[in-house]
């Protein structure tokens, strides 16, 4: 029993790490540009499928590095061509636009790569269990947690230490002042969007190895990411991270005792948080 619970907690932690990685990207974009990117799941799927297509040529590690970058480039282009036009208009329009994009991405991946689930190659040495007692601790799972941790630390370093990151954080608080101080806000928003999409692509590459590769991979992960943001608090990236891990572990534990409520439990958590703290666990009052 202990082992079963441990297994599910660990599993939940991994899934939660995916939610967090995706939610961090969504948060970045939402904080600076006020856009809910419904197409985030679509970008995730694109990242996963690009990695699948690239791995035969450049190997697993090459795919892990190149696919998210390519996804980010697609993100930069989409922002430049479509989303940029909608800044300053009612948020409804950017919502609808990304909503349409999500449809196009899902159907597009289905059109290009087919509707059936594809096998995703992970190096064999990563798949063997590390210990006979804790059979679920395969190298790949540990590896995923590690990569997510590296990505999150990297993100916080970028935001905390680099000029770009400081500008993004400043823009989140007061974009107008940042603009007046001579920062090109258009480029800033563009790069910020790309950074968010990079995280989605990375999550896609990792998730493909665990959840299997199918066109709906993105749309099944996006709603939990919303919940992660709401639970953690809109406007707070550490909150988003916390929210993702929390709902992942909560649904992991629920799987043990009441499997049919695996998904519902995170929405119950969300309702509870909203009742007690309407702006999320680490969110600030008055930001939204």
């Amino acid at each position, binding site marked *: 029993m202990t082992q079963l619970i441990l297994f599910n907690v660990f599993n939940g932690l991994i899934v939660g790490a995916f939610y967090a990685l995706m939610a961090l990207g969504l948060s970045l974009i939402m904080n600076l540009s006020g856009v809910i990117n419904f197409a985030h799941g679509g970008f995730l799927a694109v990242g996963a499928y690009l990695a699948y297509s690239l791995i035969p040529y450049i190997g697993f590690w090459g795919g892990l590095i190149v696919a998210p970058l390519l996804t980010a480039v697609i993100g930069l282009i989409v922002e430049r061509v479509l989303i940029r036009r909608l800044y300053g208009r009612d948020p409804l329009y950017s*919502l609808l636009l990304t909503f349409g994009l999500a449809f196009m991405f899902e159907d597009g991946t289905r059109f290009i790569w087919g509707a059936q689930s594809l096998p995703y190659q992970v190096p064999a040495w990563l798949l063997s269990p590390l210990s006979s007692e804790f059979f679920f601790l395969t190298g790949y799972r540990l590896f995923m947690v590690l990569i997510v941790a590296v990505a999150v630390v990297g993100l916080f370093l970028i935001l905390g230490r680099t000029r770009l990151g400081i500008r993004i954080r400043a823009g989140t608080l007061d974009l107008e002042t940042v603009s007046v101080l001579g920062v090109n806000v258009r480029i800033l928003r563009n790069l910020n969007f790309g950074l968010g999409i990079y995280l989605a692509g990375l999550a896609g590459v990792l998730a493909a190895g665990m959840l299997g590769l199918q066109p709906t991979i993105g749309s099944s992960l996006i709603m939990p990411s919303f919940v992660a943001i709401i639970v953690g608090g809109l406007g707070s990236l550490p909150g988003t991270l916390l929210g993702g891990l929390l709902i992942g572990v909560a649904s992991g534990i629920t799987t043990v005792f009441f499997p049919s409520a695996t998904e519902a439990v995170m929405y119950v958590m969300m309702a509870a948080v909203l009742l007690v703290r309407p702006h999320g666990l680490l969110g600030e009052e008055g930001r939204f």
Partner: protein
Amino acid sequence: MNGIDYNKYTATAVVWLWLLTMPFWLNAIGGYSELGTRVVVLGLAAMSLNFLLGYTGVLSFGHAAYFGLGAYGVGLTIRYLVPSTGVGVIVGTLIGTIAGAIIGPMIVRLRGVYFAMVTIAFGQVFFFIAFRWHSVTGGDDGLTGWSRMPINLGFTTVDIQHDARAFYYFVLVVFAIATGVMAWLLRSPFGRTLIAIRENERRARFLGIPVDQHIWIAWTISCCCVSVAGALYALLNNFVDPRALYWTQSGDFVIMAVLGGMRSFWGPLIGAAIFVVLQDYLSSQTQNWMSFVGLFFVLVVLFFPRGVLGIIRRRLAS
């Protein structure tokens, strides 16, 4: 002043003329009676959403949840409790309205994109309940084994079960009641207050209007009307599946409202008509209709953000 009122009455008269005569000419131009019924039902859903979106200025993206609850309410009632269409519709509407009323207080303090995100996330709870509770709802396969029942009015029985045209007019009567209530509310001081909140929430607050409470009431009314639409939708298909509750359905309602024109009462109905016909045509032509629907969203946002009626109104004004 008189001219504007005149226009408004003409619009209402034209819409009703269109709706009342539709079953008689729809087949002639290549449609089928179910298509007309679907336009009216989804039009009601989009108009209910617009009560909130266009008139209160609150960005709800989760209306599919209450639409689906109305649908499941009627399906489950007829299947398990009472084989009566009327009771089913009432139960479905009550379930959707109560769910909306309960969730309301949790969300009325939020605004803008945050409101949209929370409403859409809450909608997913009902999706997963319908999806997972296989023994009662049929899970992913949907709720089958029931159908709409003839309506007994006492002096006569209306066979909406087999007569598609009778069912259309049944739907239209319910539509008239729901939209009539909404139009009446929007004309009342309450409705004017909602528009004031949309235009300038802070000022409304300073005038002493309890804004959160008004939004909660508007939200609940909107949920009530959309669950009526959901109940009718289930009756139309004699079937409910979890997709009626899925978040993508909410997006369809929003695009219908935007496409028709959010600032007008009848706009969403016109948006629904265009959307339903387009989707029907695309899904018969290509397997990749989802891409085209997505592209349609993008094009509407980029080129027709005011909607059909918005454009017409602008033409008339200039």
